[in-house]
């Protein structure tokens, strides 16, 4: 059977179960868009390619299925770059498809030509330039396999225009040809036993759970492990929701803006069980003072993460869910009362708190979103103070409920990601908690939400400044507020101009009614919460400092 390259591409995508693509058309992608016209695949037209990549990312994180984005060559492709890098840093399964100039024009600086494979080499798990149409079906199959297995990540497929427009013999893809790719799933049994012995010997264990728990769907096993050992659990930013935040053993987030009790517990523990986490510098602070007395067990599917930043005593390479099940089979329950008491005392003595001075407080707004949605909302964030407050004050109890840019820290992530989440979870309440700086980095995507009647809610914690940068300037740059004051548009009018609802809130009493209105509405709603400008995110470990020594 003869089909165009574009038709083969779409057939192969459908064979992988793809029903939605986020994208933006252009010259070299036209054959693909032409084929989409007759296809069952739903295409969501974003207003910028970066929005398409973040939406695919949000879709993937919320559903656990790979996100697919599509752009044309050159500027279309380069506009995806931030979104691809974001997905790479947070191990999100994504397949990015880019149009490319025809094979005969490659390498000649042709119109809208960019070496997107070369540009994205450091930020993709793998990539393909489809030079041979007969390999297209296999390439798509391999791309999805690589993107979704092992440690997930983005894979790029670059499609020359003559490949997508040419007619070729179509055969469904055969075998994968990946001799160098075989991720390990099970933990090595000897290591698992060694870990079990170390756990039995420890008096003050702490579990440090990251995004890997969410990715592997190991939240049940994590809960069992914690309850069996009665060991406290702290989460990384991406690990929030992998352990119920309202559980007595939950310590919340650790690290730079972690809770005091999480950081104290890590400082004093004699065994740190790192599960699907990678010892990011925002977590560890100064390495020499991170868990100084602890033996370290590190469970991760990516061998390269083990020993990358910290010395590990018991490395276990494998899928977190499988390894935890193996571990649970050989573990004995038990833990000294003393450690549990010490942690409960810290939790009582150093709770998260802020000064309620009658002004509109960002923390209170986040708590109210939690209360009014019963904790069932899917929450995305942008990057900055509002993101840290969300991690601190919204009690995440379920995996895949918190979708945020951790590794790359991408301002402008939250709104397009929320769109992807809403597409993937159409019946759920979705909130993008945003800052007034971040929201303006991809605010055009409000139009996408209106266009597709996606009722995403945007809560802007509007303090009129780049809050987190301003906080660093206050604390570490002698209050020299260089370029952090923002002159903002009228967000309410802007929302209305896009066809969404806009609400402005300036007083604490208006918070709940505005949120209720947003949750009830079937349209996208943007709420401009004009909050206290001076509020800082506390506690805080100064950059490069020891996590046991916090400000605030």
């Amino acid at each position: 059977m003869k089909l165009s390259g574009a038709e083969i591409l779409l057939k192969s995508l459908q064979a992988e179960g793809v029903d939605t693509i986020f994208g933006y058309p252009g010259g070299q992608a036209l054959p693909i868009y032409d084929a989409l016209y007759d296809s069952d695949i739903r295409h969501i037209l974003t207003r910028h390619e970066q929005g398409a990549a973040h939406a695919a990312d949000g879709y993937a994180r919320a559903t656990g299925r790979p996100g697919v984005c599509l752009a044309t060559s050159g500027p279309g492709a380069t506009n995806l770059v931030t979104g691809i890098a974001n997905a790479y840093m947070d191990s999100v399964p994504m397949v990015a498809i880019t149009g490319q100039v025809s094979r005969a024009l490659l390498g000649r600086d042709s119109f809208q030509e960019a070496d997107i494979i070369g540009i994205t080499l450091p930020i993709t798990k793998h990539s393909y330039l489809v030079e041979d149409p007969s390999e297209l079906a296999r390439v798509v199959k391999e791309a999805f396999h690589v993107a979704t297995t092992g440690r997930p990540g983005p894979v790029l497929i670059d499609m020359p225009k003559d490949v997508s427009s040419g007619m070729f013999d179509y055969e469904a893809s055969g075998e994968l040809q990946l001799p160098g790719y075989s991720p390990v799933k099970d933990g090595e049994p000897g290591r698992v036993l060694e870990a079990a012995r170390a756990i039995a010997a420890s008096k003050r264990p702490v579990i440090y759970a990251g995004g890997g728990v969410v990715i592997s769907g190991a939240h049940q096993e994590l809960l069992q492990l914690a309850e069996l050992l009665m060991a406290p659990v702290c989460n990384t930013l991406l690990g929030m929701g992998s352990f119920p935040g309202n559980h007595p053993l939950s310590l919340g987030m650790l690290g730079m803006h972690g809770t005091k009790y999480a950081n104290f517990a890590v400082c004093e523990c004699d065994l740190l069980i790192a599960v699907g986490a990678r010892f990011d510098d925002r977590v560890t602070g100064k390495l020499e003072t991170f868990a100084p007395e602890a033996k370290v067990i590190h469970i991760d599917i990516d061998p390269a993460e083990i020993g990358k930043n910290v010395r590990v005593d018991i490395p276990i390479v494998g899928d977190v869910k499988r390894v935890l099940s193996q571990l649970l089979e050989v573990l004995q329950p038990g833990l000294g009362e003393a450690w549990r008491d010490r942690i409960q005392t810290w939790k009582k003595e150093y709770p998260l708190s802020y000064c309620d001075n009658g002004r509109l407080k960002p923390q209170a707004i986040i708590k109210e979103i939690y209360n009014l949605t019963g904790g069932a909302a899917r929450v995305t964030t942008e990057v900055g103070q509002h993101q840290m407050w969300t991690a601190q004050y919204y009690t995440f109890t379920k995996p895949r409920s918190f979708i945020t840019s951790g590794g790359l820290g991408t301002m402008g992530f939250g709104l397009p990601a929320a769109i992807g989440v809403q597409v993937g979870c159409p019946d759920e309440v979705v909130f993008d908690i945003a800052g007034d700086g971040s929201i303006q980095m991809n605010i055009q995507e409000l139009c996408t939400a209106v266009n597709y009647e996606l009722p995403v809610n945007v809560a802007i914690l509007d303090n009129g400044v780049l809050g987190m940068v301003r906080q660093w300037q206050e604390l570490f740059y002698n209050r020299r507020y260089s370029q952090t004051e923002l002159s903002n548009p009228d967000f309410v009018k802007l929302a209305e101009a896009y066809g969404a609802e806009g609400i402005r809130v300036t007083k604490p009493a208006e918070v709940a009614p505005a949120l209720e209105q947003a949750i009830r509405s079937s349209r996208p709603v943007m709420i401009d919460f004009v909050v206290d400008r001076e509020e800082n995110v506390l506690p805080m470990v100064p950059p490069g400092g020891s996590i046991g020594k916090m400000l605030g």
Partner: protein
Amino acid sequence: MRHTLAVTVENNPGVLTRVAGLFSRRGFNIDSLAVGRTENPRISRMTIIVEGDDQVVEQVAKQLHKLVDVIKISDITRSPYVDRELVLIKVNAEPASRAEIMQLVDIFRARIVDVGPKTLTVEVTGDEGKIDAFEQSLRPFGIKELVRTGKIAMLRGIKTSSKNNSHKEEDTN
């Protein structure tokens, strides 16, 4: 310490860029990298000489493993292996010094591959020590041009480092 890595990769376009790019962006130092295809035309073999302590080299190997095109990595530094480099040297050769140069060529079991009116071009293969020594001995005559291939290496005896094996970990730990 210098480590010798034998790396088998799929002979796909861009594989050298993927490997070399990984070294530069992760801040690893390549001393030498030689690449060519193996007895299987789909598979190429790289010999990479990298400077660093064991921990750095372990991280290098683990990061290389993450590249989908990389099939296998063996750090053969501590195993018995043979290694060779090929070098071409164009050296000033006035009539008065020709005989002496040709004597050196004999001693080092090198070969003269080109004769010019004022130069000789010689090739020599061997391990790094031999090539360094040969270069030193020619230096007084004036070396006009020198080019080395970089080192290639192979384990001695029956052992090989080119076949895929299911536990990649073994070779890096």
